[in-house]
């Protein structure tokens, strides 16, 4: 027994070389990862922050927090792929995550006037000119970030209005044009030079106009076709999904046959089948090669389609377009079993049953989409690599021709709107750095604050009580009404009351449990009170052993352990499994010495022009 400290009890592990290092909470990425929703969002929108603002009925503030980060809160509140929701911690402690996406719409629907809060284009420009090719979410984000800095922006698109695929491919019953006009308008109002109805057919001619930088945000405009017997003969009744959707959107197509087959299992297929139901399709079927669970479409989009009496046939591989007298009469399919080999690779093996035949008047092919850059001449210095895709730096979005940048689906293939926005922000940073003569590799650090939420002995400035409410359902208009009119928006959105109740389900994961070992007297009060058994005091060990020896084994390896050393009485370490922490603050309430504190962590991705200029060495 030395130095007044008890010797480690036999059987405890001693500190060794491979024990876990104490967590560096000054690294912004540590706490960022704890905010699962924000971390999963490509744009890293501060989700809990805006949800709290919604709960406080500060809709305009909530909208602006969103707008800063994701540029299109009203659009995304209806159409986002919501990578945040599968990540939501709530989904790990009960059945369903917080309805983050639809809460975003609550902010957009109920906000007050925001025009005065929007940035303005400076009276004096900085003399630099940037061309943006394509007016979709990626280009518009670049415009939003660069115009207020004084850049002169030329925006080119072959459509008559801004929005890109958000306008041409997303049906109006999911995204009303008014919302699109409003949110694209906030950007166009920054003094953007619009060159609409202008198809750019040559990169060379763009470069000849001496722009200081060019951004390519042309998306993935080419829908995949299906070359099967009968394709040419029955061509009059076979359409490529995304082309058909834009023809509907621009009112070139108003009707479809009574019996429709939609091929493909992604979100485009879901949009196609639901649109077909509204244009006269009474017997609409979706036919998919893969299993139901492996379909690319978001679960809620599949649900919405099935709710409109659209059956989904899985494990059916298309064989032939069947035609008679030069007219399509249906399609035949081979029923398959899905077989996985030892390495988990999937193959579709025919069941050997006779082909299945579905009658059809029209077929919509929605089996994927590709990039296409026939308009970029290959001798300009923009290198193209695998699959004829441009070679792009994954961080800076710069091409091999330094003044040309790519973003959105045009950069790395089809993803989603929120990814396009995130890439637009990063490309804008690069363009700004490039045109200021700085290294595009010098990425700005995120803006981070960590502030105690303590208001009194046991009072917090956030709502720390955890409600038991299950996820609220977004009300829809009656099916009979919705199916009659293409323009009727199906989802009604949460009203203010339901929005508040849903907002209260948020666990406030950005309010962090911050531990100061020097203050701890090892009384175990936090260990005992923690409802989800996150907190442990034990001798340090190697990570796998430590994870297994916690009060509740930390089996979710995607979630970090928060390790703190410096406990004076026993030399143990504090280990907190972040996995199912409710952020209820009880550990801090029960801590007699303030060793635990609840501190709000705000993480903001730095946008173009917001960073302090790094000193040149």
């Amino acid at each position, binding site marked *: 027994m030395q130095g007044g400290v008890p010797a480690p009890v036999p059987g405890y592990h001693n500190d060794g070389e491979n024990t876990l290092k104490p967590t560096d909470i000054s690294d912004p990425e540590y706490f960022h990862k704890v905010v699962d929703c924000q971390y999963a969002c490509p744009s890293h929108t501060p989700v809990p922050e805006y949800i709290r603002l919604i709960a406080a009925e500060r809709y305009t503030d909530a909208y602006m927090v969103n707008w800063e980060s994701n540029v299109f809160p009203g659009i995304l509140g209806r159409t986002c792929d919501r990578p945040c929701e599968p990540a939501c911690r709530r989904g790990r402690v009960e059945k369903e995550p917080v309805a983050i996406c639809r809460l975003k719409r609550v902010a957009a629907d109920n906000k007050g006037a925001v025009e005065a809060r929007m940035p303005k284009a400076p009276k004096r420009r900085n003399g630099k000119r940037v061309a943006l090719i394509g007016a979709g979410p990626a280009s518009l984000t670049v415009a939003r970030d660069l115009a207020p800095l004084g850049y002169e922006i030329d925006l080119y698109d072959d459509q008559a209005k801004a929005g890109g695929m958000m306008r041409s491919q997303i049906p109006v019953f999911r995204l009303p044009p008014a919302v699109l006009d409003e949110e694209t308008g906030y950007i166009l109002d920054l003094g953007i030079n619009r060159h609409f109805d202008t198809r750019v057919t040559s990169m060379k001619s763009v470069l000849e106009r001496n722009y200081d930088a060019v951004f390519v945000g042309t998306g993935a405009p080419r829908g995949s076709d299906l070359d099967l017997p009968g394709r040419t003969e029955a061509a009059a009744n076979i359409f490529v999904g995304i082309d058909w959707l834009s023809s509907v959107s621009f009112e070139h197509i108003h009707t479809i046959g009574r019996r429709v087959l939609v091929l493909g299992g992604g979100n485009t297929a879901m949009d196609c089948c639901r649109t077909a139901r509204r244009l006269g399709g009474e017997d609409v079927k979706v036919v998919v090669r893969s299993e139901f669970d492996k379909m690319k479409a978001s679960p809620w989009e599949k649900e919405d389609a099935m709710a409109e009496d659209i059956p989904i046939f899985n494990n059916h591989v298309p064989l032939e377009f069947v035609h008679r007298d030069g007219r399509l009469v249906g399609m035949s399919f081979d029923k398959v079993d899905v077989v996985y080999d030892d390495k988990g690779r999937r193959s579709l093996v025919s069941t050997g049953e006779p082909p299945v035949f579905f009658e059809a008047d029209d077929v919509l092919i929605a089996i994927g989409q590709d990039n296409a850059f026939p308009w970029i001449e290959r001798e300009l210095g923009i290198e193209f690599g695998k699959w004829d895709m441009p070679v792009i730096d994954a961080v800076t979005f710069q091409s091999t021709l330094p003044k040309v940048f790519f973003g959105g689906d045009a950069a790395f293939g089809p993803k989603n709107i929120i990814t396009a926005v995130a890439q637009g922000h990063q490309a804008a940073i690069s363009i700004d750095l490039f045109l200021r003569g700085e290294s595009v590799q010098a990425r700005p650090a995120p803006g981070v604050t960590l502030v105690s939420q303590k208001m009194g002995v046991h009072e917090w400035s956030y709502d720390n009580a955890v409600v038991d409410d299950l996820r609220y359902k977004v009300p829809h208009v009656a099916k009979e009404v919705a199916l009659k009119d293409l323009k009727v928006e199906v989802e009604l959105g949460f009203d203010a009351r339901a929005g508040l109740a849903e907002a209260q389900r948020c666990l406030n994961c950005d309010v962090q449990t911050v531990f100061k070992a020097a203050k701890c007297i090892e009384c*175990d009060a936090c260990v005992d009170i923690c409802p989800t058994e996150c907190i442990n005091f034990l001798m340090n060990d190697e990570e796998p052993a430590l994870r297994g020896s916690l009060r509740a084994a930390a089996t979710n390896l995607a979630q970090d352990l928060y390790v703190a050393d410096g406990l004076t009485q026993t030399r143990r370490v504090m280990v907190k499994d972040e996995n199912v922490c409710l952020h209820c603050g009880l550990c801090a309430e029960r801590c007699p010495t303030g060793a635990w504190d609840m501190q709000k962590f705000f993480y903001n991705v730095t946008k173009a022009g917001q960073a302090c200029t790094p000193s040149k060495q």
Partner: protein
Amino acid sequence: MTYQKPSFRHPAAQVNELGYTRRDYEGSLSTLCAGCGHDSISAAIIEAVFTLPLEPHRIAKMSGIGCSSKTPAYFLGRSHGFNSVHGRMPSVTTGASLANRDLVYIGVSGDGDTASIGFGQFGHAVRRNLNMTYIVENNGCYGLTKGQDSATADVGSKNKKGAANPYEPIDLVSMAIQLGATFVGRSFSGDRQQLVPLIKAALTHRGFAFLDVVSPCVTFNNHEGSTKSYAFTRERIEATPLDFVPMREEIRTSYAAGATQEVCMHDGSVIRLHKQNDEYDIEDAQSALQAIAHHNKQGRVLTGLLYIDRDAHEMHEVLGTVRRPLNSLTEKELCPGTKVLDSINAGLR
């Protein structure tokens, strides 16, 4: 201020052999000071009962008055309970046990409730070998009345204002052994690894099981100069670790191999003591008392299972009471009829 614990629990929360989760053994949210050792002991009781396991409705929590005696509200919310008069928990428990011998009695008391106002009652419960677990949450001060020195405060220990206690303390474990307690242990609220198996062993013991648990008063007795603070106790503790192995389980120790003594309980479960240097026979009262006195003299706190007598008869066996709880007796047993009465009368003639 949070008044209600969130209802979510760890998704992988275990279910014990009886099908209960830990939540089934929890009570309402504690109103004691944050960091109170008593809350740790409540958690240790929950852990012991959950893992033993016992059914919540087979347990009665008994207490008197004081911070310690409030704690039964904070654990075993689905068990029976009786919060009695100050220092009178032993007699109420005696009565309860006589009426229903099938319940498991957990008495929770404090140093004031046991060593001062309830000292006489305590002695008689020990003497009768009442079948219960009696836990003293010992913080050396009267926390509920702002921290005056209690009867277990060590001589020289300073109160919060800096005044040293002039009186010799009552050493409850020595007292219990001398009065004839059949299971005596001491532990520390901050040593869960020892406390939980000790409580499990006490609950399994047939007869009076006494546990003196040092439980720092974080508000009035956790300062420099106090001999019942977290830091002081950790510094002076002389712990004999132990495992409690229920009858049905294979013996797996969580401690490294060393000098191990196994004590077999009535129901077949085993207590394994992991001794380090102080070798004495825990079944010999005299050597137990000597070891305790020896450590006291050195200013060290000897903890662990200090003494056990596995052969003594508990109160019901001594009194030869009816084997079933009184509430299960029917008119048939209570009014056995003229024939039986006649035979009794005949025996008195």
